[in-house]
């Protein structure tokens, strides 16, 4: 029996019992869909992920990409998997029917992608980068650019990347120096070096479409002078066929801790002065367009982290159910039969911790994805509301799962003990794979600064207030339910603490100065993240409690498991909030005041 890498039962619960996604089909945009089509699409995703992605996950890790005769070579299974993905139509699924898609709601699209991410993150990432790239082109590129670059990405003929990071700039985008020189023909000549470009080179597609941030000569310094360009590896002829090379050179592959099946590249653009770039939209607006992709990418990173954590959780659960070792403390007879390690309370603690983290995170990811849909199809009021919630939740959606689902992977290794530390078992790879999540698409530190420095106070705190109202609405709904009342009260207290702490922080912003105000921003994200996940768990518990009374067999066990995981989060995790609030509210300065020379 193969070991599952993500729980279909949980995904179905989240989509239908927690989020009621079928409601989306009432809107004309999604009227062609139904619960049946959603199910059939998830079935295909699950099958392709199981049959084409998961089997080479370890193989891809052991045989990372290499350069042979100037070309990057990967194991053939990666291309086969992505071909199956393309042929099934997943590249174009969420695009409009006008562009050739099936208008799959984002929440469903992200549920679909969860199967692939959990099965094999390295192979799945080629697809997800291409899809994020294509969504940006659908939103901001001209009709001609869409014809030449978007359509082939929707069919899987071309793959895509985003090329932001430069060696000297790292996370500091305002310091990027890649240039774009206008030509009389209308295109730009691109010159510069980019680093850590995932999927930047391979032979799996006819072409690779890089989205490159660069400065048009004479543009203002800082982020206000950055433009966005389509830079294909091969130029594309007017009839859509692939033409000559476009002076994009691979200067090296980067050898990573995890995600080894995904090429991470250093690329030189325009070494010979022949690299054509095509401006997207208006000059100097590049960063705002790129953030369209980045915001989607940040939800995706949270989803990646969650899915890798989920795969580790399910593997260690299966192991714990089948590994006999030792006896319970009450079992004195050394000749008695050994118990399965799941019988040990400490193993159950580690399993429950993983369950609370990964199932809480997945619920948050899908909730945020549903907000993307609501933002798209809602009336003015709902669009604004969904947009505000997305604004404030995006840093949490990225950073919270990437920290805590990585911790889940650590617990999975621990459950397997010495075996978990060997390369013979997948939890070792999953642990390495998930370490990246806290780093890319804006480090977790940057997410904390984004949250506390911008999102909390944006529009006079409208997003923060709205989030608190949403949480309080659930508190109100659950306060009268005997089985949920205690959690409802505990969350109410935590929300009060977060509100008071936030107000105190904002009041001290001016007198303390920006540096001290933001010094503990990572902890702020963790505190608010814990409250958000507790809220999401309470909502799951609410849905589970409704079903529990009438359910039987495995269904009843599923709902009881949800309630127990909620209990774990409220008893073991939410109590961290008062301590975090104390550090934050007092602008605790230990880290801020530490001096370089004292280390």
């Amino acid at each position, binding site marked *: *029996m*193969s070991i599952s890498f993500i729980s279909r039962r949980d995904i179905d619960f989240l989509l239908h019992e927690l989020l009621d996604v079928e409601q989306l089909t009432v809107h004309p945009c999604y009227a*062609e*869909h*139904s619960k*049946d*089509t959603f*199910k*059939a*699409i998830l*079935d*295909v995703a699950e*099958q*392709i992920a199981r049959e084409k992605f998961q089997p080479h996950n370890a193989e891809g890790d052991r045989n990372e990409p290499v350069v042979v005769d100037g070309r990057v070579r990967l194991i053939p299974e990666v291309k086969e998997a992505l071909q*199956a993905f393309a*042929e*099934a*139509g*997943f590249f*174009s*699924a969420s695009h409009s029917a006008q562009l050739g898609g*099936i208008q*799959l709601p984002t929440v469903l699209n992200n549920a679909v992608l969860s199967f692939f991410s959990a099965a094999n993150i390295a192979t799945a990432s080629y697809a997800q980068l291409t899809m994020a790239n294509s969504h940006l082109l659908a939103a901001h590129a001209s009709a001609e650019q869409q014809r030449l670059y978007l359509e082939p990405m929707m069919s899987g003929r071309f793959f895509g990347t985003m090329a932001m990071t430069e060696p000297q700039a790292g996370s500091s985008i305002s310091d990027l120096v890649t240039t774009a020189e206008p030509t009389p023909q209308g295109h730009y000549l691109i010159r510069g070096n980019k680093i850590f470009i995932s999927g930047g080179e391979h032979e799996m597609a006819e072409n690779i479409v890089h989205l490159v941030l660069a400065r048009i000569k004479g543009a203002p310094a800082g982020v206000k002078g950055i433009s966005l360009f389509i830079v294909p590896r091969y130029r594309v002829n007017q009839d859509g066929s692939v033409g000559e090379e476009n002076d994009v050179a691979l200067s090296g592959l980067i050898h990573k801790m995890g995600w080894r099946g995904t090429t991470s590249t250093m690329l030189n653009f325009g070494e010979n002065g022949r690299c054509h770039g095509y401006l997207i939209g208006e000059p100097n607006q590049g960063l705002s367009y790129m953030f369209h992709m980045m915001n989607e990418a940040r939800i995706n990173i949270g989803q990646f982290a969650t899915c890798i954590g989920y795969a580790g959780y399910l593997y260690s659960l299966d192991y714990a159910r089948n590994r006999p070792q030792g006896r319970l403390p009450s079992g004195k007879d050394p000749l008695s039969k050994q118990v399965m390690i799941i019988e040990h309370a400490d193993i159950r603690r580690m399993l429950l911790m993983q369950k609370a983290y990964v199932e809480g995170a997945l619920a948050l990811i899908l909730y945020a994805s549903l907000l993307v849909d609501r933002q798209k199809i809602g009336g003015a009021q709902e669009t604004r509301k969904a947009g505000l919630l997305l604004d404030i939740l995006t840093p949490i959606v990225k950073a919270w799962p990437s920290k805590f689902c990585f911790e889940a992977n650590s617990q999975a290794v621990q459950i397997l003990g010495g075996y978990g530390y060997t390369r013979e078992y997948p939890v070792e790879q999953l642990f390495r794979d998930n370490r990246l999540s806290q780093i890319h698409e804006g480090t977790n530190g940057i997410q904390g600064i984004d949250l506390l420095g911008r999102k909390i106070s944006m529009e006079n705190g409208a997003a923060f207030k709205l989030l608190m109202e949403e949480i309080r609405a659930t508190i109100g709904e659950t306060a009268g339910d005997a089985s949920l009342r205690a959690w409802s009260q505990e969350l109410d207290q935590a929300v009060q603490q977060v509100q008071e702490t936030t107000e105190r922080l904002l009041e001290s912003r001016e007198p303390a100065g920006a540096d001290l105000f933001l010094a503990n921003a990572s902890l702020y994200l963790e505190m608010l993240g814990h409250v958000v996940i507790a809220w999401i768990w309470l909502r799951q518990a609410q849905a589970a409690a409704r079903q529990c009374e009438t359910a*039987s*067999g*495995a*269904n009843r066990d599923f709902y009881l498991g949800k309630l127990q995981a909620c209990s774990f989060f409220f008893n073991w995790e939410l109590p961290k909030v008062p301590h975090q609030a104390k550090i934050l509210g007092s602008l605790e300065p230990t880290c801020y005041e530490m001096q370089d020379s004292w280390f």
Partner: protein
Amino acid sequence: MKILVCIKQVPDLESRFKPNAEGVWYSETDLAWRMNEYDEYAVEQAVQLREKLGETTELTVLSIGPERVVEAIKKALAMGCDRAVHVRDSAAAAKDPWQIASIIAAYAKREGFDLIFAGMQSQDRGSAQVGVAVAEQLGYACTTTIVGFEYDNGAITAKRELEGGMKGVVRMKAPALITCQLGLNVPRYPTLPNIMKAKKKEISVIPVAELLTEGALANTTSFHSPAKKGGGVVLEGEVDLLVSQLLGILHEKTAVFR
């Protein structure tokens, strides 16, 4: 030309099975369902032929069972079948292969199919009788366990898989029925656009009473897990002693050295 492909919805084999209250079949509680694996080969072959022959050919998929089997029917439609028939029968699992065959044959007789594809057996019942019995009741030519298929203007050439890795080639003329074995093809994944199109394809519902005329010829009297065997043998001692002990067991109790 008219083609029929017969499919059955079976439990996912990774489900946890337990006998039902009557002890004559499995309980359906907590089971996940999918299309019978051998029927997927049948659907794929039928769709390939349908694509080769073009628009003058109509491919119908048929399944017998309760409401849940519509899910398998929709998968077949998304794989490329043109239309579907759902013979609604909440008690299909209690019917024997002869009765199931008679239901299919009764429908096929009135439609006049040139070619019928079926899986070689179902993964749950495993009788491998239904396809053959349908052919018998219709008076069609029939061949089973095929791993290769060609069709040319009414003439069928089928490669059969025999025991011991041997192969056989059978030629016959339509109308005919064939049952499909692992290795015949690689079933396609339904594509997302086809899933959306399948929603608009016709699914005719026929109550089973309209087609059922035969009684059961065989009844399942018991369904149970195999009796637990005794514990394994644990050999202990020095390596050379262990080797001689193991060789002795292999000589005595197995055919390894014969």
